[in-house]
């Protein structure tokens, strides 16, 4: 009986709840989800192939554009991998600046997530507040790096820009104001009934399953497993910084919300510590142009989880192979498991709760004709489409469009 009642609903590739293209073909029995097919790959841009034809400096900017949110973490992973290959160590001040920017980025990413999650469950006021607070963070990032999302802080051998005293004061001021707000969100998330009604018990993922499906970041930490690359495999100066790995045992969307909010507070503490203990000195050491042959696996803790870069060099100016395992890529596998048996109404928030980044998953195209990126104007685009169909045996130009009927 229920077989006949099933409805297949596509969520995506274009859907208001998804900010990027992804297709979830959901089979519904009434409002209950009985099957899901996760279709991703719409954003594949051939980044890895592009890396093989570029030099290391150019790749930094390419990798920075993998993702608009966690641009810094990708370049950090790449740069520290290349530094390891080249056998250079970066100045301590540079490492501190990397950590500060990484943590400000985490603030920015988690606030963005908080807003998106609130929007998914129709709580627009919290969405607006979270994004308003995020603006202050973005302003700081723009002041530190020179741009709002692609800060361009990292370079091989250190960082490109220093954080001077006035900027440090600005950052401290921002963190003070933000801390107050985040504490408010914490209280709100823990006590607001409608939020709890929509978040608790949704997208269950037990710790065992989280390990099995290879979940990372706040998703696995919300399942009670304290897996954080900053603690497990410390990079930059994280080994010197005292911080807690936030975990939660709710193992659902509510737990992920709590973990992210607490991580915001923890990040603020890390930023304060770094600002206070930042040593003086250079911010960059000279890196060779040709990187010695070798291979390296570099890991960072992105706002969304563990980011793995595999880099293999062959002694030339260009790498032999670059592979980015972005955090979202790891979290997709558990998605089907989390969605099954839930209501359709909970699908958007469950998808949003892993903080999916489709661009990260699919990574960067440069399979364009030649070196020049082509820009098509409207007539050419139209001609192109006519030709495209003609090649397939349909002559669009000959089809008569029926006269427009007026209704009313």
């Amino acid at each position: 009986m229920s077989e006949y009642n099933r409805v297949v609903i596509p969520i995506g590739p274009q859907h208001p709840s998804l900010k990027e293209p992804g297709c979830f073909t959901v089979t519904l029995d009434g409002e209950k989800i009985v099957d899901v097919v996760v279709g991703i790959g719409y954003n594949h841009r051939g980044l890895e192939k592009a890396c093989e034809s570029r030099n290391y400096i150019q790749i930094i900017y390419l990798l920075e554009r993998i993702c608009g949110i966690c641009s810094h973490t990708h370049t950090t992973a790449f740069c520290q991998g290349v530094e390891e290959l080249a056998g250079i160590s970066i100045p301590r001040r540079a490492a501190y600046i990397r950590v500060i920017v990484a943590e400000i980025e985490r603030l920015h990413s988690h606030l963005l997530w908080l807003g998106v999650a609130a929007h998914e469950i129709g709580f627009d006021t919290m969405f607006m507040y979270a994004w308003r607070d995020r603006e202050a963070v973005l302003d700081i990032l723009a002041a530190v790096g020179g741009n709002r999302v692609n800060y361009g802080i990292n370079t091989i051998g250190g960082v490109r820009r220093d954080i001077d005293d006035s900027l440090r004061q600005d950052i401290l001021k921002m963190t003070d104001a933000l801390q107050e707000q985040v504490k408010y969100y914490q209280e709100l998330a823990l006590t607001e009934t409608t939020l709890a009604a929509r978040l608790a018990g949704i997208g269950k993922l037990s710790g065992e399953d989280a390990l099995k499906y290879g979940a990372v970041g706040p998703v696995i930490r919300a399942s009670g497993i304290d897996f954080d690359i900053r603690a497990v495999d410390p990079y930059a100066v994280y080994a010197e910084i005292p911080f807690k790995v936030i975990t939660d045992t709710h193992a659902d969307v509510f737990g992920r919300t709590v973990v992210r909010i607490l991580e915001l507070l923890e990040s603020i503490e890390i930023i304060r510590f770094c600002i206070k203990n930042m040593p003086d000195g250079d911010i960059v050491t000279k890196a060779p142009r040709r990187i010695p042959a070798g291979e390296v696996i570099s890991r960072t803790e992105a706002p969304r989880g563990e980011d793995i870069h595999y880099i293999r060099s062959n002694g030339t100016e260009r790498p032999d192979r670059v592979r980015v395992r972005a955090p979202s890529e790891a979290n997709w596998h558990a998605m089907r498991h989390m969605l099954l048996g839930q209501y359709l109404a909970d699908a958007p928030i469950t998808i949003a709760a892993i903080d999916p980044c489709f661009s990260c998953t699919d990574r960067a195209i440069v399979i364009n004709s030649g070196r020049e990126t082509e820009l098509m104007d409207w007539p050419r685009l139209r001609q192109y489409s006519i030709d495209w169909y003609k090649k397939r045996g349909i002559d669009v130009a000959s089809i008569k469009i029926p006269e427009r009927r007026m209704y009313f």
Partner: protein
Amino acid sequence: MIKSAPGKITNMAVKHFFKKPATISYPKGEMHIAGNYRGKLTYDPTNCNGCGMCMRYCPSNAITVINEGTKEERKMKASLKIAQCIFCCQCVDSCPRKCLYYTQNIDLSSLNKDELVVQL
């Protein structure tokens, strides 16, 4: 599950009702950008020796520096494809003679496609 009256954010919302909005009415309001925001490049040809480091490291092949004069009497010209520039300013860092600078000029849109390639 927590049992309490919904609408915990009401206090905050009502407070904000009487506060100045956080947004601006864009074309009319004032836009604020940070002091060292990376915008359009400028070029000072006096020191340039035409080493091409900027072109070599440009991730998007946006900048072109050519010598229009002879080898002895240099006449350096730089052009920038604004549509392709990603404003990373790596060229500024790479330039050994410090001939390139960035400005805070970010309002670069144009209705004409030809204006998207500019002489610096």
